[in-house]
């Protein structure tokens, strides 16, 4: 954890959303520097060939090289002022080899022929040194070289080219409107990431990719000092694999919900959401404290995405299942023996969960993964049955498959690539159904929107989730707002209680921008799509406490 710089989030802001700190890779640079191109593809190919040739000459049987430039622009504001603007760049080369059946990895910021040759030598030396205590030689699924190819996130507006003042103006408007509408405090942020990655391997692939991600978010807080109470509401935006056009706030991408609530699909109206959020934070101050017990839950996609992430995304990571993450993230209840029965009921018959790295506008979507495998879509849970996992080239053989799923990712050139989660999404229901119609069928329930507190055990059985907004449903109608709500369940029990899923018109994605895994920890970004979904008879607890 010490390799990296972290920005400590302040006060009540992002802390609740993504933990205590935000990773920054690389060093501060000017905006002009970020927009200057680095080496062109021909130069990168030449440099990559140095790595491939040197490693081979030193005894490597396989080599891949990633020449990576990682750009980040982060803006932090509160109320009427800009707290911080981060412009950071990280540029270098990571070389991974197999020698004596063992992985070796080395990285350098010296992107010269000499620097790369030395780095390739070191990678081979590390592989050979580690091979002495290696017990399981690496078996790599074959991957035919794809030649020289290019892939770019299909963006309309490159966020890095938008003037910084325009971004500050937007956030100041967000903050101003929030304060006007009842927020005592507001923090707002914009996160932009651009990965320029050149991958080459001894399979004969030379892959040039330009990947963009965006995340606008805020937290508004209403305070009543007299009552000694405060309540917050976070943005219901989603991080996306898009350019600045995500902030256009197109009316056509808004999804109408009950009681005037609005959901956002592939276009976000940040100012509108801030106004709504401020009113809702105030409303939360007087919301009824929930009576604990069993409720039917109606979960909005902006909430359910995190539940999918934690209770399906992580347990179906094959490296976790095998024990590679046992000391940190943990292992998984979804063991190979359960999968082998072909009858393990992960969920009810309605539950179809798909993995992909190809859905438009999502965080997981790229052309090729970080070991040169073309991206695709595959089933994880089909008609409720666990049918597959997420795998990389060196592990997919364990599943009896001969081609990788394309789930290999490194968060930087100096990090070694390993298995990371693709998009994991719940397929929408086939029958026509919107959220208003779904609520009509619920006698005693809670409608939950937004990402709140979340916690799950290291094998992904027992979880507890909160949210941003809770509405009590009685006899098919929303009767008011609730507070102090969290639901606790067991993964298999929960997904088997899935009773109804809205149709594709309600489908949208939720995302996690800084998902952590590995030692040293690496981040990755991943989307989770779903339509509003109903789960019957889930245990709800009251989280209200008194500390005197």
């Amino acid at each position, binding site marked *: 954890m010490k390799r990296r710089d972290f920005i400590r989030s302040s*006060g009540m802001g992002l802390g609740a959303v993504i933990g205590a700190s935000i990773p920054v890779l690389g060093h501060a640079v000017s905006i002009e520097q970020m927009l200057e191109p680095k080496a062109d593809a021909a130069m990168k190919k030449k440099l990559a060939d140095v790595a491939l040739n040197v490693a081979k000459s030193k005894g490597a049987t396989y080599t891949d090289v990633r020449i990576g430039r990682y750009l980040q622009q982060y803006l932090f504001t509160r109320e009427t002022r800009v707290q911080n603007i981060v412009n950071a760049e990280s540029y270098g080369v990571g070389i991974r080899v197999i020698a004596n059946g063992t992985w070796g990895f080395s990285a350098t910021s010296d992107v010269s022929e000499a620097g790369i040759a030395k780095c390739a030598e070191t990678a081979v030396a590390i592989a050979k040194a580690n091979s002495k*205590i290696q017990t399981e030689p690496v078996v790599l699924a074959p991957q035919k070289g794809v030649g020289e190819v290019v892939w770019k996130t299909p963006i309309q507006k490159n966020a890095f080219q938008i003037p910084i003042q325009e971004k*500050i103006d937007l956030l100041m408007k967000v903050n101003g409107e929030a304060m006007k509408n009842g927020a005592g*405090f507001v923090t707002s942020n914009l996160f932009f990431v651009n990965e320029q990655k050149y991958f080459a391997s001894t399979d004969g692939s030379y892959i040039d990719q330009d990947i963009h991600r965006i995340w606008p978010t805020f937290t508004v807080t209403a305070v009543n000092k007299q009552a000694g109470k*405060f309540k917050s509401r976070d943005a219901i935006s989603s991080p996306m694999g898009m350019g600045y056009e995500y902030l256009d706030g197109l009316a056509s991408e808004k999804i109408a919900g009950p009681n005037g609530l609005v959901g956002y699909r592939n276009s976000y109206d940040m100012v509108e959401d801030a106004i709504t959020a401020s009113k809702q934070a105030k409303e939360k101050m007087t919301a009824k404290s929930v009576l604990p017990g069993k409720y039917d839950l109606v979960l909005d996609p902006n909430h359910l995405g995190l539940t999918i992430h934690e209770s399906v995304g992580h347990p179906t990571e094959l490296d976790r299942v095998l*024990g590679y993450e046992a000391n940190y993230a943990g292992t998984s209840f979804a063991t190979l023996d359960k999968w082998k029965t072909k009858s393990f009921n992960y969920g009810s018959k309605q539950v179809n969960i798909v993995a992909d790295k190809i859905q438009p506008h999502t965080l997981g979507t790229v052309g090729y993964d970080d070991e040169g495998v073309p991206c695709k879509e595959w089933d994880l849970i089909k008609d409720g049955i666990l049918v597959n996992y997420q795998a990389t080239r060196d592990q997919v053989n364990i599943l009896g498959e001969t081609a990788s799923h394309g789930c290999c990712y490194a968060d930087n050139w100096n990090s070694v690539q390993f298995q990371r989660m693709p998009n994991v999404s719940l397929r929408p229901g086939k029958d026509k159904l919107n959220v208003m119609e779904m609520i009509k069928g619920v006698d005693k329930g809670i409608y939950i929107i937004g990402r709140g507190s979340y916690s799950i*055990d290291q094998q992904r059985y027992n979880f507890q989730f909160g949210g941003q907004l809770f509405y009590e449903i009685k006899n098919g109608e929303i009767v008011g707002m609730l507070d102090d709500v969290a639901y606790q369940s067991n993964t298999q029990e929960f997904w088997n209680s899935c009773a109804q899923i809205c149709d594709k018109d309600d489908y949208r994605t939720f995302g996690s921008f800084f998902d952590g895994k590995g030692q040293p920890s690496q981040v990755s970004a991943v989307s989770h799509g779903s339509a509003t979904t109903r789960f019957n008879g889930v245990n709800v607890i009251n989280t209200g406490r008194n*500390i005197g």
Partner: protein
Amino acid sequence: MAILTKEEAKKIIDKVLAFSKADEMSVILTGSRTGNIRYARNTVSTSGESYDLALAVTAVFGKRSGSSTINEFDEQSLEKTVRRAEEIAKLAPENPEYMPMLEPQTYSESPTFVQSTANIDPAYRAQVAFDSIDPCKKKNLTAAGYLEDTTEFVAMGNSKGLFGYNKSTSVDFSVTVRTADGSGSGYVARDFNDTSKLNAKSATEIAMQKAMASVTAKAIEPGKYTVILEPTAALDLIQNMMRSIDARSADEGRSFLSKKGGGTRLGEKLFDERVTIYSDPTHPDIPKAGFDTPRGRAGGGGGGGGGGASGEGRPQEKTIWVDKGVVKNMAYSRYWAQKQGVKGVPSPQGFIMQGGTQSLADLIKSTEKGILVTRFWYIRAVDPQTQLYTGLTRDGTFYIENGQIKFPVKNFRFNESPVIMLNNLEAMGIPTRVNGNMIPPLKIRDFTFTSLSDAV
């Protein structure tokens, strides 16, 4: 080469400051060498080593500031970086909360650097992995562990003549040992400045013992129990609370330290009278730099966030945060301290919770009925108003009856506030170092477990 001496660092910083045309300028120079080895399934999975040396310049005109970073140190590059920081500053928005840079300060010095740790090489790391894997293999157990060692320095200077330098080392080791059938799991973690204090084999043996002893865990009803939290578990909850001890949030009415009707709970007795928590950079077991070291240095510029650790060079001094249960101090940014008209102390870089004289074994012996908790996992804030957190037990949870460990129990989910927990204090043991803090094992009554987990 990544670790510069005080003199080498000062020479570079002075050179940079001489180029300044700004109203104020600060320079932060950092360098590190960090290495790691990771193993799982009783074999090494990854290992590596990396070096970093970087210089960040912050230029200020009025209330506008800008930063630029570089990792080349010839005169031309340094001057270019200064000019760039100045250009960025001129274009930056005014920061109404900007605080003028500090005059020279006096800092305490502590033995944060230990040569044995700086000497760690790949062979040493491989030996640690072997010492941890080998005993597990012999008992048909599976080890997954991680060792990371860091040698680093930080130097800071500004145009008002302030200068600070600190060189430090650290080593962090953790291992999870599981039985071959996955029905038992144990964990241990150690951290030191001096790696000669690390005995990976004996640490691993504790995790092995816990793994074997936790097989065939019984399910017992969730509810309120007396718990003995080992220091690793106790730290997690108390550290979360200590991170929220920010004065500004409290003054703004959005903290557990905010008072009904306005104001803060400073001076109020919030915990059991045996609770005393302080920070001290000269503590022999957790020595720290004598100044507020920079965080988020790639960002620079905007004047930091809400907490006190903005890396502006304020001295870190011995500070009592909680004295006999009474809140004595909260952390201030320089801006907020000035606005409130107080001296204001920065956030601590680690804390010491005073304990008792009993060993963990003594605490168990004196317990009629209770649960021993090795470790918590996936702790998340549920309600910042009450400091309510949820999370789970993991890697060694045992039922105690009549002063003895009777049997392993299935893991629990808890929903508990450290504020409530520190009012339900039964006893404390001898503090030990955990993740750069000193924390005793704690015996707590009425700790709230809300559900069971099948996870091992």
